[in-house]
């Protein structure tokens, strides 16, 4: 996700479109990215590697935060 202090023009565009469709009461929209990474066996070492992927390529830590979660 873009960090809270970073302007998110895409989110702003969505925020502008929602009232036009009748969805009122939305005060802000922020748009991020979701990566689904398939790995056969998940363990702590693999999770550490995924976090490394997130920090080096998938996100730019200068402007974005990331979280990692596991789904079976």
């Amino acid at each position, binding site marked *: 996700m*873009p*960090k809270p*202090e*970073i*302007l998110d*023009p*895409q989110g*702003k*565009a969505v925020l502008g479109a929602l009232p036009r469709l009748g969805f009122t009461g939305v005060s802000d929209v922020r748009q991020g990215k979701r990566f689904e990474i398939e790995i056969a066996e998940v363990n702590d070492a693999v999770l550490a590697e995924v976090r490394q992927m997130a920090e080096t*390529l*998938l996100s*730019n830590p*200068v*402007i974005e935060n990331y979280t990692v979660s596991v789904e079976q």
Partner: protein
Amino acid sequence: MKVGVVTFPGSLDDVDAQRAVRIGGNEAVALWHGDADLKGVDAVILPGGFSYGDYLRCGAISRFAPVMTEVIARAQQGMPVLGICYGFQILCESHLLPGALIRNDHRKFVCRDQLLRIENNRTPWTSAYDQDQEIRIVLKNGEGGFVADAGTLERIEGEGQVVARYLEMNPNGSLNDIAGVTNDRGNVVGLMPHPEHAVEELTGSGLDGVGFFASLVEKTFA
């Protein structure tokens, strides 16, 4: 001097940059993104374009191209590197330059002849300009909004790392109207507008861009 110009898949200003290098009085050397070989060049330009479809983030994938391993290592040793537009985005993604570039705040592509002020003429790419000289060159970008956290912004302003600033209007939402920055050592410069398109009277808005390519000759190794 031998100045390498890297071609990435999707680079579109690489040939213009090579021509500008020659007009500036240097030898242009074509470099390929897939070759970890700088062919003995003294400086490198990362030109404009839209490599890898701008997937993920602009410059995020090119930053890991084989040639970039060499460019980053040499830049950290002091080799002059200039990133123009997409090249600026790659340099930020490489963390050779502070901050990052995001989508224009007005969300439209912008293309205009833009007035700038050169606020740091002590870099190897800007020494041909007078301090605070105003130049007009073309700007064309969709993701040219320069952002950085408040601490970084204060530091680069305080250290004189803002190389160029937009005048008359802010075309893309860049914080503090920043059009170009340099690293703390001053050898790596990123610039969102395109000086390589302002080097000949026949095409472009004038000759205000020549200085970026002539500076290397005039002062760097004098």
